[in-house]
């Protein structure tokens, strides 16, 4: 059947089961948008290409599918880069499609030309510059395969304008054949026995659950393993949701901005079982020291993660599910009751009570997070920006289910949460979606309020306003002698008026005794809502870590 390259692209996307894409048109991608006009695929027009990439990432995480974003050549493509890099760091499956100038113009610095395959090489699992329309069906099929298998990640396809317009005889692509792309997963019986023996020898084991548990849907197996052997669990930021917040063996998030009990357990454990965690410096600052003190077992689907940041005593290149399935068959595992009691006591001692009854001058962010989660319920999805707001959500919002916490973990991208919440809401329109932000980060993607309005997406925006860049302010307070350099946002706009301008319902609170009623009103409202909460600018996030000597 004769068709254009652009029509073949649409057909290939439909074959991959794509129902929703996020994008922004421009001249060099016009043939594609023309073909899209006849398709059932829903296109969401963001206000900046970066928003399209982040929204596609939020969509991917909530929908358990590969997200798709589209941009034109040149600035459209370069605007995607932060979104692509963010997805790469957090292993989120994404296919980015960019228009490119016509093939005969490539290399001549023509209008809106940018070498986007060159620019995105460091942040993509793979990328393509398509030189023939006949290659498009195969390339798109491969791109989805690469993005979604093994350790997921973004793939970019750059399609010159003339290739989109070229007519060719369409042929359905055969099975994917990529001799240079290997997925290895499996635990040998020798590894399984060595693993079991390590656990039999251990007195104080912990499991450190990373994003790999979430991305391969291994949470139910983790719960079984943990319940069966009574092993305490800590998570990285990407692993939040691997075990329910209120599980008695869950100790919290690791790292400089994590919780005390989790860091304590890591430092006292004699066996650390890392599953789908890459031991980033934010989670484990002193990895080498931990490896000297404890036995390390590292399980990851990406062989390159083994030995990169920590030298394990036993390593398995495997999917988290495969590894946990193997663990379920372990026998003669001793009882870790003393160790469990120790860490549970530590956790209990640090528990705090929410401050809700008394009037106050400002909102206490941890109390707000606790109530937000309790009132929104376990299946609500919460997105965060990056900064103090992210840490408060990570440590205090009760995340119960996997994929309900959506945040930029590795890249730490401000401006991620708002568009990601849109992607999540589009993926799960029936569920509550809450987007938590600070006043700095909200303004980094605030133009996407326009997309929210256009899509009538009933997202609940919770703004923690302290009129400053709170996290940098906190760093400057602790480490730079209170020399506050460029952190004040004193001329913030009136966010209530901004909400009004976009037709969102809105409210503003500053006292803890208003939290419950305000959150309930927000959740009950059927449309988009901005709840602005005035918080204390000196409220720290690093309090526990600093005072209590966690690494």
């Amino acid at each position, binding site marked *: 059947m004769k068709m254009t390259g652009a029509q073949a692209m649409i057909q290939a996307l439909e074959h991959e089961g794509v129902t929703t894409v996020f994008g922004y048109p421009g001249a060099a991608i016009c043939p594609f948008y023309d073909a899209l006009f006849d398709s059932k695929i829903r296109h969401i027009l963001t206000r900046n290409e970066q928003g399209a990439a982040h929204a596609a990432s939020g969509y991917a995480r909530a929908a358990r599918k590969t997200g798709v974003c589209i941009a034109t050549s040149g600035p459209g493509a370069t605007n995607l880069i932060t979104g692509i890099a963010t997805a790469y760091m957090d292993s989120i499956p994404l296919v980015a499609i960019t228009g490119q100038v016509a093939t005969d113009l490539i290399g001549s610095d023509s209008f809106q030309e940018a070498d986007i395959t*060159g620019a995105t090489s460091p942040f993509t699992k793979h990328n393509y510059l398509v030189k023939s329309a006949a290659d498009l069906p195969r390339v798109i099929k491969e791109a989805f395969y690469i993005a979604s298998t093994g350790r997921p990640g973004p793939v970019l396809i750059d399609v010159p304008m003339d290739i989109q317009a070229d007519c060719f005889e369409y042929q359905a692509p055969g099975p994917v054949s990529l001799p240079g*792309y290997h997925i290895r997963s499996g635990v040998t019986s020798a590894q399984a026995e060595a693993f079991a023996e390590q656990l039999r020898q251990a007195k104080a084991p912990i499991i450190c659950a990373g994003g790999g548990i979430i991305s391969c849907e291994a949470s139910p197996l983790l719960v079984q393993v943990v319940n069966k052997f009574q092993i305490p669990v800590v998570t990285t930021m990407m692993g939040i949701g691997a075990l329910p917040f209120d599980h008695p063996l869950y100790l919290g998030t690791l790292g400089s901005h994590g919780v005390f009990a989790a860091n304590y357990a890591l430092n006292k454990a004699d066996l650390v079982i890392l599953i789908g965690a890459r031991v980033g410096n934010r989670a484990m600052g002193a990895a080498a020291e931990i490896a000297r003190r404890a036995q390390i077992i590292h399980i990851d689907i990406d062989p390159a993660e083994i030995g990169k940041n920590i030298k394990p005593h036993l390593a398995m290149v495997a999917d988290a599910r495969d590894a946990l399935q193997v663990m379920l068959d372990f026998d003669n595992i001793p009882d870790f009751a003393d160790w469990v009691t120790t860490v549970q006591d530590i956790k209990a001692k640090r528990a705090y009570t929410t401050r809700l009854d008394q009037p106050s001058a400002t909102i206490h962010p941890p109390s707000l997070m606790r109530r937000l989660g309790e009132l929104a319920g376990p299946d609500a999805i919460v997105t965060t920006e990056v900064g103090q707001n992210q840490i408060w959500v990570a440590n205090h919002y009760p995340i119960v289910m996997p994929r309900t916490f959506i945040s930029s973990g590795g890249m730490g991208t401000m401006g991620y949460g708002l568009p990601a919440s849109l992607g999540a809401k589009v993926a799960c329109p029936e569920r509550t979606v809450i987007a938590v932000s600070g006043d700095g980060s909200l303004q980094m993607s605030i133009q996407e309020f326009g997309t929210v309005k256009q899509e009538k997406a009933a997202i609940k925006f919770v703004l923690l306003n302290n009129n400053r860049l709170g996290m940098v302010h906190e760093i400057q307070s602790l480490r730079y002698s209170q020399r506050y350099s460029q952190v004040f946002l004193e001329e913030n706009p009136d966010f209530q008026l901004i909400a009004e301008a976009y037709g969102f319902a809105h409210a503003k609170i500053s006292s803890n005794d208003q939290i419950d009623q305000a959150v309930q009103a927000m959740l009950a409202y059927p449309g988009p809502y901005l709840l602005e909460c005035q918080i204390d600018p000196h409220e720290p996030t690093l309090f526990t870590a600093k005072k209590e000597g966690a690494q």
Partner: protein
Amino acid sequence: MNQHILAVLVNNHPGLLSKVAGLFSRRSFNIESLAVGVCEVPDCSRITIVVNGDESMVDQVIKQLDKLVDVLNIERLPQGKSVQREMILIKVQAESTTRAEVVQIAEIFRELTGQADKIEAFIKLLEPFQILQIVRTGLIAMPRG
């Protein structure tokens, strides 16, 4: 710091070399030399890469290279069990008084391909004369047997 030789089979795509080179620079791997050319596999090239580093670094180099979809195979060549050659072109200032000596040195080596130490020895011999320009191919290597 040891020297490691890798023979890397890659799809012959435009842009592939920049992906490989970019990987080395962004992960701070230290390339000593890189030689690339078409090979016996259709549409493929073989790159010989010499890297300096400890064992854990070369392990990371291999694993990261393996993640590139267009990298088909990576072979680590053991020092003693591989054939290694490098080629050099060298231009020297040859005056009427020294020309005969330079030609004589060149005669000893005949053709300037060889293992790295032979190349180094040749450069040393010519150093007393004024060397004007040197071009080296970088090492190419394959396993014996």
